[in-house]
Every structure is written in structure tokens, then in C-alpha cells.
């Protein structure tokens, strides 16, 4: 088997990289692919909690690349599927604890056994980001429709271009349809006109994400979740299916609200 390395990155922090990594990793695993996801935000471990696997960590990615343990010993199996494994970030070390050669070596090993190796990149454009970007076969940039997130995404796109990374696509996260309608948030099309890279998904703002993270269960596990449905669509696109982009519209209002709206029109 020769799997693919898929890196999730963004430039700006806090736009939903780890949430996206968790959902795509779990979504791909639930679609029958063998997946390993590596938290490369060394020093700031996060992905384990989003996936609800924080109590199972014995060894981390720094232990693996320093050969203090075998790869198998650092693979934490998911509770819900046999297809998903996590390698956690180290907490007691910093970004300089690993080199890009070490990460490339590790991903080359993992590609033999897994369909997808998903790298959760740290924010920024420094060494941690380079370690996540250099081994990638495909890269997904996560942004939100905010001016600073889009500007940082553009900077990342420029760096990826100069490193000859051509398989790059965009997730626009946290689209709020009410704000877009009012003209107070850039729409999907606005962001695409500015960034001009192919879109792989749009994810609506979903206030439930906070509680999903609280309990360590990503959106894709929740049948009625809007953001979960959006991530499942992205999973299908990664697998080569042609899925139309979700229309992100306002939630249906109650009867009274629709009467008010009727008179407003």
C-alpha cells in the first residue's frame, strides 16, 4: 500500500485546523480507509482531546522520531473505529525537537500501512508548519471568512507555491449565513475571488462544535450536525466523488418569525 499524506494548515491560528483534521480523519476512517493522524503542534497538544483520546497517550511523535519507542507503540487506536489511529504531539518539547527529515521519514513509513496520513499543522509559517507541509502529497488550507484569516491563507498559498506544492485546496470554515445575508461577512464567492485556489468544502458556523469538543466527539459522529454533514461531503470529495457544495442558508425560523419576515419583505 502507498498512502497519501494530507496536511491541514491555515497560517492563522484558531480557524479550525484541528477540528477539521479530527473530522476528516474520522470521516475517512468511517468510510473504510485506514487513517493515521499526527498532531504536529509540538508543545501544544490538542488533537487528542478533540478526538477524545487524551487518556490513552503513552508515547508521542517526538519519542517516535527519536526512536525512543517503535511506531506501533505510539499509535493510539480510536475508540469508535479500528481504522483510525492518532500519534500525539509532545507536550514537554518545542517545535525544534523534530526536523522535517524526521517527519518525512515517519510519514514514508506510515504510508506503507495506511491509506491516509493526516498531518495537523501548527499555526504560523515557521518550522512546525514546514515540517507539516514538506511531506504532503495534498494540502488543505482552512480559513474563515475574516480578513486576517484570508490574508494569512494567501501568504501560506504563496509559500506552498514556492515549494512546488500544487495539490492545494481550501476549506472555508464558520460561514454564518445571517451575517453573509446582511453583508457583514464575506461570502464563499468573495473569499474564492480573493484567494483563487480550488474549493474543497464550505462548513457552516456550528455552535454545537464547542460541546462536541467538550465530550471528545467530532461533528461527523453526530447525525443531525450541519458541520458534520459538511465534513462528510469533504471526505467524499477527498475520495474523488463529485459532491455539490452545500448551500449554507439561515436556519428555519419559527412560525411567528416567518410572519414577521413576510411583512418585512
Amino acid at each position, binding site marked *: 500500500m502507498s498512502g497519501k499524506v494530507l496536511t491541514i494548515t491555515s497560517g492563522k491560528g484558531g480557524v479550525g485546523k484541528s477540528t477539521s483534521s479530527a473530522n476528516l480523519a474520522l470521516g475517512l476512517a468511517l468510510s473504510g480507509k485506514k487513517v493515521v493522524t499526527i498532531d504536529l503542534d509540538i508543545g501544544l497538544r490538542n488533537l487528542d482531546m478533540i478526538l477524545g483520546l487524551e487518556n490513552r497517550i503513552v508515547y508521542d511523535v517526538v519519542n517516535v522520531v527519536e526512536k525512543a519507542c517503535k511506531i506501533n507503540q505510539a499509535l493510539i487506536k480510536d475508540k469508535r473505529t479500528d481504522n483510525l489511529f492518532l500519534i500525539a504531539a509532545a507536550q514537554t518539547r518545542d517545535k525544534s525537537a523534530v526536523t522535517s527529515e524526521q517527519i518525512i521519514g515517519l510519514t514514508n513509513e506510515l504510508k506503507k500501512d495506511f491509506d491516509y496520513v493526516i498531518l495537523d499543522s501548527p499555526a504560523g509559517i515557521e518550522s512546525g508548519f514546514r515540517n507539516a507541509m514538506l511531506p504532503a502529497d495534498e494540502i488543505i488550507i482552512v480559513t474563515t471568512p475574516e480578513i486576517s484569516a484570508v490574508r494569512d491563507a494567501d501568504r501560506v498559498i504563496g509559500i506552498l507555491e514556492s515549494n512546488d506544492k500544487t495539490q492545494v485546496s481550501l476549506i472555508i470554515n464558520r460561514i454564518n449565513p445571517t451575517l453573509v445575508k446582511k453583508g457583514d461577512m*464575506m461570502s464563499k464567492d468573495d473569499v474564492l475571488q480573493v484567494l483563487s485556489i480550488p474549493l474543497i468544502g464550505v462548513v457552516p458556523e456550528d455552535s454545537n462544535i464547542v460541546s462536541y469538543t467538550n465530550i471528545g466527539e467530532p461533528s461527523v459522529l453526530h447525525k443531525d450536525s450541519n458541520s458534520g454533514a459538511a465534513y462528510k461531503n469533504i471526505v467524499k470529495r477527498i475520495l474523488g466523488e463529485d459532491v455539490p457544495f452545500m448551500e449554507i442558508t439561515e436556519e428555519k425560523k419559527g412560525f411567528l418569525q416567518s410572519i414577521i419576515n413576510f411583512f418585512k*419583505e
Partner: protein
Amino acid sequence: MFFDFFKKRKKTSATKAKERLQIILAHERAANKAPFLDDLRQDIIKVISKYVDIDPKTINVNLQKDNSMEVLEINIPIK
């Protein structure tokens, strides 16, 4: 309908965001593609001011792309 009439005359904040981004990113993309421009500008100022009196602020160094041709444009007004 009545309210929309007033709404459309005012630019929305999303439109402003998009316009601001398009302008700043055009600049940043150019600067990142030719990171040497700033150093070049400094060197030119040093060399030219050895011979003629110039105002460093008025020197303009620009890399432009016209289809397949790249033009390095340097403007030096002499005092």
C-alpha cells in the same frame, strides 16, 4: 423593498473587506515574489547619492509583469 433601496446605496462591510484584501494582497504577492527589491532600492540609493544629490523618498523601484515580459522599472528624480 423600501429598505433595500437604502441598504444598497451603502457599501457593506463584507464588500469593504474584500476590496481591502484585494489591494493589500496584490502588494504582498508582488513583494514576496521579488523579496530583493527592498535591498536593491537601498543599494541604488547608496550608489547614486555618491554622484548626484537625490531624495531617497522619491526613488521608485518596481517589478512589473506584462504577459511574458518582466520589466524592472527604476525611477530616480534628481534634485
